[in-house]
């Protein structure tokens, strides 16, 4: 029996030890990725809001009766 196999079997308790470690890492990786995703969404929405606001400001600045330029 190789030593790696021995290590992975955890003296017969591998089926309990490794899922516990897998959960530990899965939950913490999800926790550390979440703020980055939220940050990207927040900044994207903020840029869209600012762009809409800028477009509105430009339209309001134009005289209402002015013919649209070709």
């Amino acid at each position, binding site marked *: 029996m190789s030593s790696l196999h021995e*290590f992975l079997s*955890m*003296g*017969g*308790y591998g089926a*309990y*030890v490794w*899922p*516990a*470690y897998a*959960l*530990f890492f899965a*939950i*913490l990786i*999800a*926790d*550390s990725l*979440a*703020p*980055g995703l*939220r*940050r990207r969404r*927040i*900044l994207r929405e*903020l*840029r869209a*809001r*600012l762009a809409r606001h800028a477009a509105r400001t430009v339209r309001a600045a134009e005289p209402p009766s002015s013919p649209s330029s070709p």
Partner: protein
Amino acid sequence: MSTWIPLWMHKLASPPTFYRVAGAIRPWALALALLLGAIGLYGGLVLAPPDYQQGDAYRIIFIHVPSAWMSMFIYAVMGVAGFVALIWRLKLAEVVAMQSAPIGAAFTAITLASGSLWGKPMWGTWWTWDARLTSELVLLFLYLGVIGLYHAFEDRRQGARAASFLAIIGVINVPIVHFSVVWWNTLHQGSTVNVFGHSKMAWDMLWPLLVVTLATKFYYAASLCARARTDLLDLEGGKDWVRKIADAEARP
């Protein structure tokens, strides 16, 4: 504002300054967490000998106990930050309290799941209504309650204050979790590691446990920095310093 608080604390509590400082702290805290975590888990999984009664199953301790300590530590931080938020109406305290909740809930979930996976081979059951297990489950519900209450309000700051109040009331559960193994004689074992006295654990097993514990502290610092920064961007969306960041990140 009170005069006994040093000026640098006032400055640090201002969102743009905190955003910058937290951004500088985060990579270091994360690097330390990964380094210490790797050392501690190597020590625990490879170097430490098997337990004379539990064989290798006891190795779950190296994530179970640090996570359990973090579940209580983070709750205490959330309670203190919530208290500051309610008394001084400090925006940063609200952010720290509310952004700690998901991290604490994550560690509490890990504690319960890893404990369950440890209990099955050692106790013969995944779950039992033992005092320690039950109070830890209540801790998870308190975290979820805080998160839920926070999101139930249209106004974010109002939600943060209401949820801070719930967090403060829930602090009563932290000593209950800690002393549950002393007050009630149920299945979960008593503490093996004693901060102020003699630990009932061999050094070969103890040092990896303490190193992983330190790693989880640094992990919390890193995660809190990231979450608080993101939350400040959301809260201060209309302000100039946030617009500058949004503009800067639009360019590839």
